[in-house]
């Protein structure tokens, strides 16, 4: 798994942000393991390293199958964007929590979380749920928000979750010439 995969969750909301991100993406294409400082991160708050671990956690919470998962929906982009706005108060919790996950993972399974196999990540996450329940619950809640919430906040890319559930994102509704007494078609 390379950071290029994370890049699909990156912001690109403003030109400056986008250019900064693209540059960083190329710079880190050699791989996260080589290490990169937060100054080169394409993210607003997270370091590339943190985003790599966080995205792996989110993808365990909502894996991809016939429909996209947390990664495809841009959940890390949602979280990162909130961490510099409404969720600013959770910055410290994310910084220390993600570090703890890699610590637990390395101590028990010999590798940082993002580099474990799928099975290894599931086992490590169960351990995190036991040891760091508050952090676990917070990331889980934010993952659900980023996946199922409105795309305007940076997640749920292309309404992936709403299409999965069969909810038309933009229903067309007339006001009075619509007969609601008959069953609606799906």
């Amino acid at each position, binding site marked *: 798994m390379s950071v290029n995969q994370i890049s699909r969750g990156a912001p690109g909301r403003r030109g400056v942000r986008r250019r900064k991100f693209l540059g960083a993406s190329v710079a880190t294409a050699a791989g996260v393991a080589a290490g990169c400082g937060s100054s080169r991160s394409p993210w607003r708050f997270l370091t590339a390293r943190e985003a790599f671990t966080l995205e792996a956690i989110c993808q365990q919470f909502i894996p991809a*199958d016939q429909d996209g998962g947390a990664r495809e929906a841009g959940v890390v982009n949602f979280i990162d964007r909130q961490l510099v706005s409404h969720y600013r108060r959770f910055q410290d919790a994310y910084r220390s929590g993600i570090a703890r996950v890699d610590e637990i993972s390395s101590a028990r399974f010999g590798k940082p979380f993002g580099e474990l196999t799928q099975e290894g990540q599931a086992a490590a996450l169960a351990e995190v749920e036991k040891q760091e329940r508050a952090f676990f619950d917070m990331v889980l809640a934010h993952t659900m928000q980023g996946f*199922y919430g409105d795309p305007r*906040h940076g997640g749920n890319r292309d309404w992936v979750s709403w299409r*999965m559930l069969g909810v038309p994102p933009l229903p067309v509704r007339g*006001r009075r010439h619509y007969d*609601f007494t008959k*069953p609606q078609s799906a």
Partner: protein
Amino acid sequence: MALPKVNAVIIGSGAGGGIVAKELAQAGLSVVLLERGKWYSAADCRKDDLRNQRTTVLGNGFGPDDARNPRVLVDENGRERILLASEPGYNNNAACVGGGTQSYGAQAWRYMEKDFRMRSTYGAVAGSTLEDWPISYQDLEPYYEKAEWEIGVSGDDTANIYKAPRRKPLPMPPLPPNREQQLLQPAAKRLGYHPFDIPMLRNSVPYNGRPGCMRCRWCVGFVCEVDAKCGTQNTVIPTALSTGNCELRTECMAKEILTDARGRATGVAYFDAGDRLREQPADIVVVSCAAIESARLLLNSRSKLFPNGIGNRYDWVGRNLQGHTYPRAVGLFDVETYDDVGPGAGVAICDFNHGNPGLAGGGMLANEFIRLPYQFVNYVPPRIGRWGKAHKDFMRKWYRRSMAVMGPVQEMPVFDSRIQVDPKVKDYWGIPVARMSGRKHPHTLEIAAFTVKKAEAWLKEAGAIETWTVVPGPGLSGGQHQAGTCRMGNDPKTSVVNKYCRVHDADNVFVIDGSVHVTNGGFNPVLTIMAIAYYASDHLVKEWKGTRFRS
């Protein structure tokens, strides 16, 4: 800085204050209506499922804002926390013109006759301050009717054999049933219950110059995009302003009620939109800030004659905070139940409001409002777990094939469930904040455990192939249905206001909102708050004409 004196200053422009403003202004009194929030319009619907008044994870859609309005919550285990306005446990009600009525689900219930006589009906309940109201359903009936016709209610409760007598039907027919209702209505009848169309403060047909509901999914928690929901902001408040006697001042935060050496209120001190401290002198002060903030304002209004706050001589201000306990049954179906037709809630039964063996009350049951995807995340049975492939599969498979039935259980009031003002924490303006503490009465939870089984049985009869139930925990109630903190009563030693909503020990101060509810019914409380506002205004105007208040 003192402003020109007016006859009445009203603090809060929600369900109560908006109506009082209109009634007093029409009677010829000069009125200033203070509102701490903004005036939103239909264009502010936003359709933001993470930031509205129902789901507030990214902030309250219609106030108050996180930056300036903390509260302190002491939870049932004694732990103290400072909460932001959008956090769970804050017990928020919207802060804007119209208050909660701008973004509510708009169920428009009359309480039942027994709801005003809970103590006489059920006797004393240990650990509860359960009591009768000093007024009866009959006293309020004409004012319920006035609220239904002036603000606008659609629905049809003729099939509700338990309802209290009414003189006039509702002004608008119900909306046509959605698919949930089509399954639940016949199922209730098969069980011998008495289902009917929920009365709603929502236009089903054009009424009062506004259009009918277009049945979208952005309903409870949102400002209506086509202005079909009826609140005080699009009915009585514009009427009040059109009299020329009422001035509405938005983004004005009340600090305290001012009193003179004789103990009469002289006006209100407040911070205006530019944070300047102002004084608005008035003959009458009406407090309509909802149960938590009304109590806070009285408690913060201290003086030599009122060392513990206005109306608080016997330590009853802020006591008996209650809301509703909402147990929920969820059912999964092998047919699609989701038809994307709002508002969602449509059918109710009152078969379990009273007369439940061994229980002091009960509550109405109805299907839940339409669920947006994020809200469904927690509608998952315990066997599924909270995350991973199983959770995702569940969401995908059942979102469109599920229903929830729930209902507000009438709570047993608890003396120690209360609002105080915090000794340390202050808000942005330097005003001591509300400090909330207490818990639900255990019997409330017993009643909830009973009604939720009835909800579950209803879903099964409607064809549910799997069902489960969720009963809330013992923590403090309040929320958008907050009530009870300035109890209405005849005895000044065990209540805060008299039966006309006048504070016992301050002749020209009134509390007119859900705070005065002795008990809160097994129903959404807003139509009762509106009825009380019409009723109390009526009396106030009559007294005014005798010039009792002019100093």
